[in-house]
């Protein structure tokens, strides 16, 4: 059970980070924290239910890497254009 508590704590930290951080990189980092929290609980549960959870965790690592490739590309493109990655600056689209 301690795995579950640790992963809930990690997930909650991630959610807190997403809500409070104001730069795109740190928000993204918090989201990665949430993914890893899920990984931890998958592996933890795999102790009780067999290998399926561990395989799932490996898949998630690959998915997270793909997400990083696209996400960091986007953030770099934004930074080149505005010299800033603060999410509060993204306010052209309103209505």
């Amino acid at each position, binding site marked *: 059970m301690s795995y*579950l508590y640790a*992963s809930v704590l990690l*997930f909650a930290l*991630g959610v807190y980070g*997403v809500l409070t951080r104001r730069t*795109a990189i740190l*928000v*993204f980092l918090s*989201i990665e924290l*949430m*993914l890893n*929290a*899920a*990984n931890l*609980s*998958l592996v*933890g*549960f795999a102790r*009780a*239910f067999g290998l*399926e*959870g561990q395989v*799932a965790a490996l*898949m*998630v690592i690959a*998915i997270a890497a*793909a*997400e990083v490739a*696209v*996400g960091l590309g*986007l*953030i770099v*493109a*934004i930074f080149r*254009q505005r010299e800033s990655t603060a*999410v509060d600056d*993204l306010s*052209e*689209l*309103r*209505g």
Partner: protein
Amino acid sequence: MTLLVLSLFSVALTLLGFFVSVPLFKRFTILGLSLALLSLLLTWGKPFALGPYHVDGISQVFTLLALLGALWTVGLVRSGRFEFYLLVLYATLGMHLLASTQNLILMLVALEALSLPLYALATWRRGEGLEAALKYFLLGALAAAFFLYGTALHYGATGNLLAGTPGEGPLYALALGLLLVGLGFKVALAPFHFWTPDVYQGSPTPVVLFMATGVKAAAFAALLRVAAPGVPDALALLVAFSVLLGNLAALGQKEAKRLLAYSSIAHAGYMALALYTGNATALGFYLLTYVLATGLAFAVLSEVSPDRVPLERLKGLFHRDPLLGLGLFVASLSLLGLPPLAGFWGKYLVFTEAAKAGQWGLLVLALITSAVSAYYYLALGLAVFQKGAAEAHPRPLARGVALGVALLLILLGLIPGAVLPALAAG
């Protein structure tokens, strides 16, 4: 079969893109999507399973809608780069996979396979496009994280990774809730809709067409599977929020794409109502009418301008180009749900199912908000008849497709029974 065609074309075209000209590449993409459509129709109603890949009725209906959206987008767009078409193809592959599996991890892979190309497509116009894409990306990644954590808890509660496994206890309820949040982001159910207006406004219109049709179809298919053993009661709240917020916020909009974005939130609410009352056929039919009508509206807008389209710029469209003007008029009336158009029967089916299930509170709310929506749909539809100097330079094919879809909407409205058996059998 469909999976094979789509993946074969995605891989082959990735290599081919560097050697052939862009117009030829576009034809290859259309060929691939058409072959996938053909293989889907040839195997209609025949289930197929290989490992975690399950083709069944739900998968076929929702894949059909996603393929139609993809074909429409590819046909509409005039891009100078082959990557655009390739990304649409990859996203379609993800949509088909998402609709055709019960394995939660494979669902997550499919969800990313459809989302990552769309993040890139949203940036296609620099400037506003980048802002829209970053918002879409951050909220999409957050949704994926919620979905994954839901998957992990689901695994802990039931011991396996198959969506639709019955279970009980607080851990299971929490898992379903998190899965619901993750998919709610993707279909733009309020209160997880923040990204929708900005992304729809900032992205190129053909891409928005794809988002509004394909992504919704695929994500609702996944939602159907997750909610199979018993719909969580929290969905009722999402339905209420979505129909209220979507319709009320749309009232004040002066820009056509933003207006349609709020309308898409409201429609997601009506579709979730069909899901809540547990009728897959009603959901499929509603989604079909929605895909046709909203696709038509975005297709007309993209012929007017790939950029923002304030309602002012639509004035006089009917005089400038009668076919496009009528197309937008028919599309907005169908979205409103006025008889004798297809949208009416979609709403009729959903509302009668809600009445049968005894969901009177939600039904009354849906009816009232639906009446409220008349204000903005009529404003959008009637703008084309007013005096003004609308510009449009449509190609003959775009006008032909607009005419065809408008006729289809009217035809489906006159004889809705024609497709219902096919949807129920598929």
